[in-house]
């Protein structure tokens, strides 16, 4: 046999293996970076890591190429041409920092609101939010507002925790899994690992999604719902389950506010509020006495049915009666919703039956005694093994908040939240709205040279917590926490530029952005936004948005529109902190946090943004960032990670605290903390005690553990809020009660949307445009192998997704007479684009879709201007406007969920026509080629990565 004599079966893959955290997306898996010489040989998943257990996705595996992208910025830049021309001059860091501080100092000293600081795909909001607070501007938010804030808020306000990556299905124990509108999600690898486990156990998965790809393709059942109608579908499931008595009454009584008494006194200012005692405690009807008593009393059995007359008129009834009255109504029957949802009533019955069967006939019992917050002992943990998960298919609609609430209520009704086999929180959740802070930034809280008294983002509990002025007008630039979007817990990133441009509610002086490609894929109305960024005031000749500071690591579309660029490092070159104070990486059974550290040194004049931000803070003399002498407190971000304390004993990292490095959660700073993390594989994790793993909201063991870890200062047990008093308070305001009332033009909308029990209302765009003219829903999906805009610079990933066809249902293709590769015009109320199509069967017949963020602006990302991303790739964003079509009153609402301000990307309705055949068609609109910063690395025409590593190996082997 001519076996290969040179075949080396045991090559050494690394001189050293550096363990850190991936940042090819926000999932934050643990990675082992194999390094040979000074080159990266290989990146694999870290088997010990709680997030990914050793697996690694396509993006993570392409990290080497991201790290070496020719589009990496290489020095601070000062704009020299016009905005958008992409003409820059390299400057020193000193000059850059001086420039930034000279812009920001006067603002802080006069009117801190004039700084709008918005961060995108950021994972250091604990730092950036604090920085904004210390600066004193209320105008801070991260990317949640254009992402899935309505889902986050619905979760927090209803069950004290949300989907996103804040909770997880109980993969080990569930017997039925329902997935609503998820293509990929932040928990990219965990969901896949979990689905693998379900398949292994033969557990049925049902995907409710207009499109059958990815997770929906492997689901045992696919329900191709019409977009925007999940609320109806879920309420019809609730209707059936209630009607047939397939609900968990014991659970409802113990863990939810279903028994709480609600005042019914129509027209009065307390109508619909909970009946409370003098201590503010909500009341329930005691089963034995039939009398109201505090819901917190131990040993009672509250009633779900009944009525008591109130001394000053009206009655109070358990919230459960309102639920039953509402949802048993035939308007919620499967038959009533099938025309809108496109799901035959029989399938709803069947699914409801399957849910009931799994929940009640296959209950999971874990032999684990535990004690609840009232001191009652339970000898077992009993679960209803139906797990559900949802993401942007629900949240990217203007009715997403209420739909998501309906979904959580469905979970609660069958007793499957925080019970074995159901949906589980990841610490530090659960944490209900009332123990989160309220947003800071009321008019009297914003003062020159003064920090805000609290964090700019928080959870309002009533109209009193809104950030509005005396006239009820917004005080934040994005109009967050105003009557436009009262519960906008993450701000409204997608409105910042258009509001700042319009000077509505006021102009800003500096727009400071970080890691958000706002001039392209993360904005609605992309062309409009580009114009807003470049338009000048004819009187002064100054840009409407006078100064823009931006931090990116790569030559993205946004870079060309900034005045000052603070170049970041790549994720393998810097310190980062994946903190419990931010979006942690915990799993339901363990608390965990992690770091990134420079596993290779940058070869360019770039700095980690967080270090830059701390430097800037110190130059501005922000409290907490300088000592008494005005000297910087922190050398860099690593120093801050180690030594900063949010409150005594609590710092950015929870592991290896105290001088000994043995303290967990709470403890003094440990100078060797980062080394301890590195030695431990880049992360820290601590298992929850066995008896603390379920029923966390009501579990004494968990509450004690949470206090020990520093999540809370005292135990904070609570009940799930099926009936939302918070929403009712806004409802009452809209009805004319209280001192803070909505402006006239928003009253009807608030009345319609702020219902204390979730209701379905039609998505706004779908409702406002003529459905004969725009009959088709248009959606985007996340490609698993690509991350927003930043994956396209990656030569491996872009071979997988170099352009994106519009996938159209076969019926539509037949009527349009188009085939794969033909081109169509797609128009909406706002614009028109020309795109290539691909025909598909597995998609809702009224829906078309494409991959998100594949289309690129010519010239950006160091790609050839003729790259397929620019020629055949496209964005749906050109069709989506940040404002809805004009209404009768001449006003235009923002294209958002009216409750949280969540951008309603998926409400889009379009019309499609066949385009004339052209041999070399290109996607439209086409934009001029973007200029790129000076001296970027020249892209290779042939790439042979590994060449020098192989050569080195050969040499070694020969020696």
């Amino acid at each position: 046999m001519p076996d290969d004599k040179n075949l080396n079966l045991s090559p050494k893959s690394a001189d050293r293996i550096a363990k850190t955290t991936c940042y090819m997306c926000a999932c934050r898996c643990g990675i082992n970076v194999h390094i040979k010489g000074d080159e990266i040989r290989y990146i694999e998943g870290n088997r010990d890591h709680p997030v990914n257990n050793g697996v690694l996705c396509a993006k993570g595996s392409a990290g080497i190429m991201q790290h070496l992208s020719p589009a990496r910025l290489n020095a601070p830049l000062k704009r020299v041409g016009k905005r958008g021309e992409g003409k820059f001059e390299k400057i020193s860091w000193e000059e850059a920092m001086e420039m930034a501080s000279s812009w920001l100092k006067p603002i802080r000293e006069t009117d801190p609101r004039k700084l709008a600081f918005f961060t995108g795909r950021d994972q250091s909001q604990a730092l950036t939010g604090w920085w904004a607070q210390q600066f004193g501007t209320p105008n801070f938010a991260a990317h949640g507002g254009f992402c899935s804030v309505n889902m986050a808020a619905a979760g927090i306000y209803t069950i004290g925790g949300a989907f996103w990556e804040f909770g997880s299905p109980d993969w080990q124990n569930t017997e039925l899994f329902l997935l609503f509108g998820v293509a990929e999600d932040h928990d990219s690898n965990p969901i896949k690992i979990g689905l693998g486990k379900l398949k292994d156990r033969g557990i049925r998965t049902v995907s409710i999604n207009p499109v059958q790809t990815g997770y929906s393709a492997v689901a045992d059942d696919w329900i191709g719902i019409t977009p925007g109608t999940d609320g109806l579908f879920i309420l019809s499931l609730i209707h059936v389950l209630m009607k047939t008595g397939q609900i968990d009454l014991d659970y409802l009584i113990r863990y939810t506010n279903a028994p709480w008494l609600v005042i019914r006194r129509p027209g009065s200012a307390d109508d619909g509020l909970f009946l409370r005692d003098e201590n503010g405690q909500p009341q329930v009807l005691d089963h034995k006495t039939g009398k109201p008593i505090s819901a917190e009393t131990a040993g009672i059995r509250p009633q779900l049915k009944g009525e008591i007359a109130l001394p000053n008129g009206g009655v109070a009834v358990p919230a459960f009666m309102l639920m039953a009255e509402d949802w048993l109504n035939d308007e919620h029957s499967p038959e009533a919703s099938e025309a809108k949802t496109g799901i035959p009533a029989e399938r709803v019955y069947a699914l409801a039956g399957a849910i009931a069967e799994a929940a009640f006939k296959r209950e999971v019992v874990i032999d684990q005694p535990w004690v609840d917050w009232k001191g009652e002992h339970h000898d077992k943990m009993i679960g209803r093994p139906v797990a559900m998960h949802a993401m942007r298919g629900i949240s990217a609609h203007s009715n997403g908040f209420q739909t998501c609430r309906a979904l959580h209520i469905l979970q609660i009704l069958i007793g499957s939240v925080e019970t074995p086999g159901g949906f589980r929180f990841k610490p530090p959740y659960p944490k209900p709205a009332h123990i989160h802070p309220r947003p800071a930034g009321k008019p009297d809280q914003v003062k020159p040279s003064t920090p805000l008294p609290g964090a700019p983002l928080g959870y309002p509990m009533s109209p009193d917590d809104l950030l509005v002025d005396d006239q009820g007008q917004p005080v934040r630039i994005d109009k967050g926490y105003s009557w436009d979007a009262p519960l906008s817990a993450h701000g409204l990133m997608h409105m910042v530029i258009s509001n700042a441009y319009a000077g509505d509610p006021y102009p800003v002086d500096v727009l400071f952005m970080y890691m958000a490609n706002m001039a392209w894929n993360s904005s609605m109305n992309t062309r409009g936004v580009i114009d807003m960024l470049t338009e000048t005031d004819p009187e002064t000749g100054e840009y409407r948005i006078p100064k823009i500071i931006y931090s990116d690591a790569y030559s993205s579309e946004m870079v060309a529109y900034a005045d000052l660029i603070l170049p970041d490092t790549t994720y393998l070159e810097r310190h980062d902190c994946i903190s419990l104070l931010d979006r942690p990486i915990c799993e339901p059974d363990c608390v965990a946090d992690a770091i990134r550290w420079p596993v290779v040194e940058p070869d360019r004049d770039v700095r980690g943004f967080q270090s830059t931000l701390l430097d800037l803070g110190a130059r501005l003399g922000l409290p907490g960032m300088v000592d008494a002498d005005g000297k910087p407190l922190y050398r860099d971000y690593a120093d801050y990670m180690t030594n900063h304390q949010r409150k005594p004993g609590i710092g950015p990292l929870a592991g290896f605290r105290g001088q000994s490095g043995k303290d967990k959660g709470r403890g003094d700073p440990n100078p060797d903390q980062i080394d301890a993390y590195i030695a431990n594989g880049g992360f820290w994790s601590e298992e929850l005690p066995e008896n603390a793993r379920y029923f966390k909201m009501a579990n004494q063991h968990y509450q004690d553990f949470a206090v020990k870890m520093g999540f809370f200062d005292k135990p904070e047990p609570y009940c799930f809020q099926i009936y939302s008093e918070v929403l009712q308070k806004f409802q009452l305001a809209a009805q004319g009660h209280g001192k803070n009332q909505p402006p006239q033009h928003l009253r009807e909308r608030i009345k319609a949307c702020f219902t204390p029990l979730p209701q379905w209302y039609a998505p706004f765009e779908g409702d406002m445009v003529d459905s004969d003219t725009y009959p088709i829903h248009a959606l985007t999906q996340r490609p698993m192998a690509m991350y927003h805009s930043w994956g396209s610079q990656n030569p491996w990933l872009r071979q997988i997704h170099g352009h994106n066809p519009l996938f159209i249902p076969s019926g539509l293709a037949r009527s349009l007479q188009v085939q794969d590769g033909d081109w169509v015009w797609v128009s909406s109320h706002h614009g028109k684009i020309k795109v290539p199509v691909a025909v598909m069967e597995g998609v809702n017949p009224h829906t078309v879709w494409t991959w998100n963020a594949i289309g690129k602006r010519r010239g950006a990302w160091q790609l050839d201007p003729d790259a397929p991303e620019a020629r055949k790739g496209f964005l749906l964003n050109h069709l989506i406007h940040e404002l809805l079509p004009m209404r009768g009153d001449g006003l235009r609402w923002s294209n958002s969920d009216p409750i949280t301000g969540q951008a309603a990307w998926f409400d889009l309705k379009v019309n499609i026509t066949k385009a004339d055949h052209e041999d070399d068609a290109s996607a439209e609109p086409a934009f001029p080629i973007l200029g790129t910063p000076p001296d970027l690395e020249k892209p290779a025409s042939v790439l042979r990565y590994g060449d020098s590593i192989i050569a080195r190996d050969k040499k070694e082997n020969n020696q």
Partner: protein
Amino acid sequence: MTSLPPASDVKLGLVIDLDICVGCHACVVNCKEWNTAGYGAPLADSNPYGKNPSGSWLNRIHTFEAGHGAEAKVVHFPKSCLHCEDAPCVTVCPTGASYKRAEDGIVLVNEDHCIGCGLCAWACPYGAREMDPAEGVMKKCTLCVDRIYNTHLEEEDRIPACVRTCPTSARHFGDLGDPESEVSQLVAARGGFDLMPEQGTKPVNKYLPPRPRQSVTADEVDLVAMAKKTTPGGFWKWLDQSLDRLPG
């Protein structure tokens, strides 16, 4: 020589589960990054930032749709070399560069001997071989021969890169020559099949079919009945009775 070795008892290969592959391309890219700096020449990419980017890959994911209308099913379909027992790619090779290992059946290309004639790629029915655009030699899946016996790796890591990285565990590695092995058992239990058996290549790799849909449909009479049964005496009566049954 390029004649095939006598059939070996050990037949190392992959078993790929089409029932759970979500088409994430993790195996594709991890394969590329492991192999580009390992076995043979780098897996090159031409026009990596240009108009028609293309490169050599040892594993690719196709997405198919089968059937029509509501019954249509999307299937993600990974494909790499199947390490065929009767590998035509080996016997056509004029130089002996292409060979099948006697000891474990792995089909490899000795890149130092390959003249880059491309014939083996024509002989392979599956498209499992690709000419490297820069090196001009034939590239194919090596079954990670430099991992599976690699004593520098932890025992549990001595599996192909694609298998180790697959988040859904859709890929299994083992000895398909041993009927007792886990992979053989899987194939037996799940009705694992060959691709294009009519080509007579006798692939070692096997595919597990997507399981039939367990749709929650109206056919499941029990469930529908359960969901339609009315509570005797109406909801409120049911409520009273149920509450009475609750402990406490």
